């Protein structure tokens, strides 16, 4: 005899000798180590009214119950169908199944595989865990059946359309479905079933949490419906009481918290409807002319649409509801009718009225009359613009200009000033989401890193002189190009236009290595523009070559061997001297030794921690020169380098330039100071209105100087008149200029007006002159 049959012997003996209860019913104990087939065998041998007390263990399904027995599971005995058909099928009334784990049904929808299938009345299914099943509990004509305190979970891996219902009741009246926890299914659906009570259930991650079809006189109370496609969808039924339910976060394609379709005489009372796509959806309810819908004390909050009404909603009473921060409080679609619909003492979070008599009710009616809502009710396509700030503008415009204000969708003549929060609905406890905590912390770290971290990670702190470990000098193009190039700078037909203005007009010249060349000319002659073109920072016509590099195409390479000191020193004011030198040293790929050298040589070391804006003009000029010299360039471009310096600073600066020239640097500088040009330059390029008019050594340029020198004389204001008359009388062309007078003189007789005035006893306090060219 096989071992498994031997093990059944004590069980059968137990059944035969089972304890006799009062009334004749017996209780049989099935041990935890009974074989997998023992439970079905025990049912087969039991009589109606017997109790099978299962002490634990594993039993193979499907199990068929055709006796009115009570199955009590202790220590969670398992009934497992191993993905084949229905796990437990009940065919006779009076069966109780309590305390089991019922799991792994088949998954064929056409065969309606279920955890527990009931085809009879008066069954109790209680305290079970019904797991990984297609349908959870399937009730067919199962009047007076109780489904209580079960945990029912569908097949999570299946897409929702392939899932079965967590509970399906079909033509089953007087059901009690209570305190179950249900998830991962399609619906809890009640079809053609009267007097059903759904109470205290928690349903999540389903299609319709609760779904009623053609079922009347039912109660739906204290349920929690979260994270479903639709919380509760009630259809084609009448006399339903829907009270103290919580419908939250139902955001599927329809996303109704509670949907009501073709219903009559419904009471929707004190429900929490929160953060759904549509809070309460009402379609053609009530259906019949003499029926009435009551919506009282509901909290409808944070939904995209608080209450959405389709056609022909009428004869309804809405009182004490709290509409809190729904994106659209009430939407109306189609040709909605509001016949005999009463809005009274509801709270509206967007109510802008007042309560002077402090009776808790606003003194002016609430009107839902937002222009945009009215527009999207008429033009559905405009719903696209929901969440756009333009909507606030539209609504503001309607408030500011009442002529465009729409007809109100509804009017509540007595709006509450404070929301009403009912005590009945069950809250839900949402734990702190640690994943979100970590995400938030990560975001803050990223935010910090963006500001500070990146800065530190990619370099040293600013404010210190770089050390010798700085990135090495990259090979400068000058090393490859300078050898054998006699002409350091070649300019051919350089032209620069700013719109219609020609700032530089067809200028050509060549500068040899170690030459010091002055660009000379009046203001606006084009000196600075030529220098900027040489640097390649402005687009230009013509051709410029620096050390063989074509500036139009290789300006960056050319700038490696050029140092530049602009006329207007424009460093970043908030950087310190050492930060500035560090920044430009890195751009020029030079070493920290170079920074130290130039700081010392240009006497900047003392100022290294000062910000640029704290420096004097002379110190800024030195800093600019230090920056220009950091990488020991072969060429220096200086744009009016002494323009903003006092005499002493100018002398020092020129002395320094002289040293650089003697070191063999090629220097191109612009100036309008004649003495600088003549004392420092080997060659002078004279520019006039963008044209190069003279290219010669200083001595030759002297010959070109014209007769028309402009002398500015500064005399005391009391002697201005006399000075003007005296000079005019002596044949000078004189004009007044504020505190001074301007006199046209010949270049070689600039002292004549001064002598004249001095002889006449008129004090000449100061003078300046400008030389014009032939």
């Amino acid at each position: 005899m096989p071992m498994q049959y031997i093990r059944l012997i004590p069980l059968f003996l137990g059944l035969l000798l089972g304890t006799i209860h009062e009334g004749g019913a017996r209780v049989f104990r099935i041990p935890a180590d009974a074989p997998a087939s023992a439970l079905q065998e025990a049912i087969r041998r039991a009589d109606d009214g017997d109790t099978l007390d299962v002490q634990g263990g594993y039993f193979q399904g499907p199990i068929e119950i055709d006796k009115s027995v009570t199955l009590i599971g202790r220590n969670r005995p398992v009934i497992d169908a191993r993905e084949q058909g229905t796990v437990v099928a009940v065919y006779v009334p009076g069966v109780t199944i309590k305390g089991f784990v019922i799991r792994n049904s088949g998954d064929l929808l056409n065969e309606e595989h279920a955890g527990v299938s009931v085809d009879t009345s008066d069954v109790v299914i209680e305290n079970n865990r019904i797991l990984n099943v297609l349908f959870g509990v399937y009730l067919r004509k199962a009047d007076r059946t109780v489904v209580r305190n079960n945990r029912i979970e569908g097949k999570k891996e299946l897409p929702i359309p392939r899932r079965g219902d967590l509970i399906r009741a079909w033509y089953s009246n007087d059901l009690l479905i209570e305190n179950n926890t249900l998830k991962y299914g399609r619906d809890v659906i009640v079809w053609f079933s009267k007097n059903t009570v759904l109470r205290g259930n928690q349903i999540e991650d389903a299609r319709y949490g609760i779904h009623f079809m053609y079922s009347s006189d039912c109660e739906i109370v204290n349920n929690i419906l979260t994270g479903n496609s639709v919380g509760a969808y009630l259809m084609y039924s009448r006399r339903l009481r829907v009270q103290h339910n919580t419908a939250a976060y139902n955001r599927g394609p329809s996303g109704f918290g509670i949907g009501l379709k073709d219903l009559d005489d419904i009471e929707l009372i004190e429900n929490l409807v929160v953060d759904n796509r549509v809070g309460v959806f009402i379609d053609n309810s009530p259906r019949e002319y003499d029926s009435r819908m009551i919506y009282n004390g509901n909290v409808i909050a944070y939904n995209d649409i608080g209450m959405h009404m389709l056609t022909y909603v009428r004869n309804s009473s809405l009182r004490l509801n709290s509409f809190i921060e729904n994106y659209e409080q009430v939407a109306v679609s189609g040709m909605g009718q509001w016949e005999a619909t009463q809005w009274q003492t509801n709270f509206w979070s967007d109510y802008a009225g007042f309560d002077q008599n402090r009776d808790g009710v606003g003194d002016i009616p609430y009107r839902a009359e937002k222009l945009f809502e009215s527009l999207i009710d008429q033009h559905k396509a405009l719903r696209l613009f929901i969440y756009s700030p333009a909507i606030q503008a539209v609504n503001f415009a309607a408030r500011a200009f009442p002529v465009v204000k729409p007809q109100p969708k509804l009017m509540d003549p007595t709006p509450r000033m404070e929301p009403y929060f009912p005590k009945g609905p069950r809250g839900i406890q949402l734990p702190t989401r640690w994943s979100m905590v970590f995400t938030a912390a990560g975001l803050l770290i990223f935010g910090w890193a963006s500001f500070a971290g990146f800065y530190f990670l990619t370099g040293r702190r600013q404010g210190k002189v770089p050390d010798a470990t700085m990135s090495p000098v990259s090979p400068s193009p000058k090393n490859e190009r300078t050898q054998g190039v006699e002409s350091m700078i070649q300019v051919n037909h350089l032209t620069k236009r700013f719109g219609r203005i020609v700032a530089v007009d067809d200028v050509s010249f060549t500068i040899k290595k170690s030459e010091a060349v002055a660009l000379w000319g009046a203001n606006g002659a084009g000196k600075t523009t030529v220098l900027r073109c040489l640097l390649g920072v402005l687009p230009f016509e013509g051709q410029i070559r620096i050390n063989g590099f074509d500036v139009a195409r290789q300006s960056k390479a050319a700038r490696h061997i050029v140092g530049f000191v602009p006329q207007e020193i424009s460093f970043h004011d908030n950087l310190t001297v050492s930060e500035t030198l560090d920044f430009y040293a890195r751009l020029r790929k030079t070493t920290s030794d170079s920074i130290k050298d130039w700081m010392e040589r240009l006497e900047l070391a003392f100022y290294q921690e000062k910000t640029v804006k704290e420096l004097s003009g002379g110190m800024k000029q030195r800093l600019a020169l230090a920056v220009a010299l950091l990488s020991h360039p072969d060429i220096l471009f200086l744009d009016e380098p002494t323009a903003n310096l006092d005499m002493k600073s100018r002398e020092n600066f020129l002395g320094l330039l002289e040293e650089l020239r003697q070191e063999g640097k090629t220097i191109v500088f612009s100036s309008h100071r004649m003495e600088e040009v003549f004392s420092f330059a080997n060659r002078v390029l004279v520019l006039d209105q963008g044209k190069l008019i003279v290219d010669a050594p200083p001595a030759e340029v002297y010959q070109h100087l014209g007769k028309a020198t402009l002398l500015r004389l500064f005399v005391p204001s009391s002697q201005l008149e006399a000075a003007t008359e005296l000079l005019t009388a002596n044949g000078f062309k004189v004009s007044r200029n504020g505190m001074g007078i301007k006199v046209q003189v010949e270049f070689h007789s600039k002292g004549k007006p001064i002598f004249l005035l001095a002889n006449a006893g008129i004090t000449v306090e100061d003078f300046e002159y400008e030389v014009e060219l032939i």
Partner: protein
Amino acid sequence: MNIDFGNILLLTRKEILDARRNRWFILYTIIFAGLSLALSWLGLSGLREYGLSGFGRTTASMINLVLLIVPLMGLTLGAMSIAGERERGTLIYILAQPVSHLELLLGKFLGVGLSLLGALTIGFGLSGFMIAYYGGTTAVGSYLALILFTFLLALTSLGLGMLISSALRKADTAIGISLFAWLLLVFFGDLGIMGSTIIMNFSIEQVFMLALFNPLQVFKLSAILMLQGNLEILGPVGVYAMRQYGAQLLPILSAFLVSWILITFSLTFYAFKQRGAL
């Protein structure tokens, strides 16, 4: 083209340093963080006694906030970036160094962009703590997706701001024009399409196509799609977009935003090169 990434990194650092010292930037950071915190608190805390929170409402408010503030941040900071330096004379000085136009532009874009993203991230991070505290129901992935698309919108706005800036000499003018661009994107563009739809009776398809020209609408569509899984909230146009493009919709919308960034950056480079340092 020979690009020196060392130069780009150095210029990026400089821009970040400048941003840390920029009063506007600090103000924007505080405003965004403050508003996002306030909106989260308002949306989440109201029904705390029931253990409920309005994360859907919060995300709607966040989308609204992003649409309003982020383009303003990106456009104005972008507008200040080049024209401001041009006006101060620092631009010509940097360009006089061995730095190419592209390196300078990339350094600026990355530096301002990274600072901008940092500012936004701080706001989102603080809101994230509040969502966690109130037990908001959103998935972390959806929240990160909202942030990602906000980044794309920020960089798009920054690109537009820099484009404006690259063509102008004065920072004030650039900021003025960028404010007009902001009005155009945030208000006038949408109002124009809305008005035209009512008057000219545009089809659903036409409304959708017109909306795609506005990067703000593209961001909004992407954010809602990521957060809610579909666009039904946006009515028939949303449903049309879902049915017409299905799973391709999100990649298409993302590609639009990335294209905005690339196109504006390319145009900025062209304008910057044409205009030069002055």
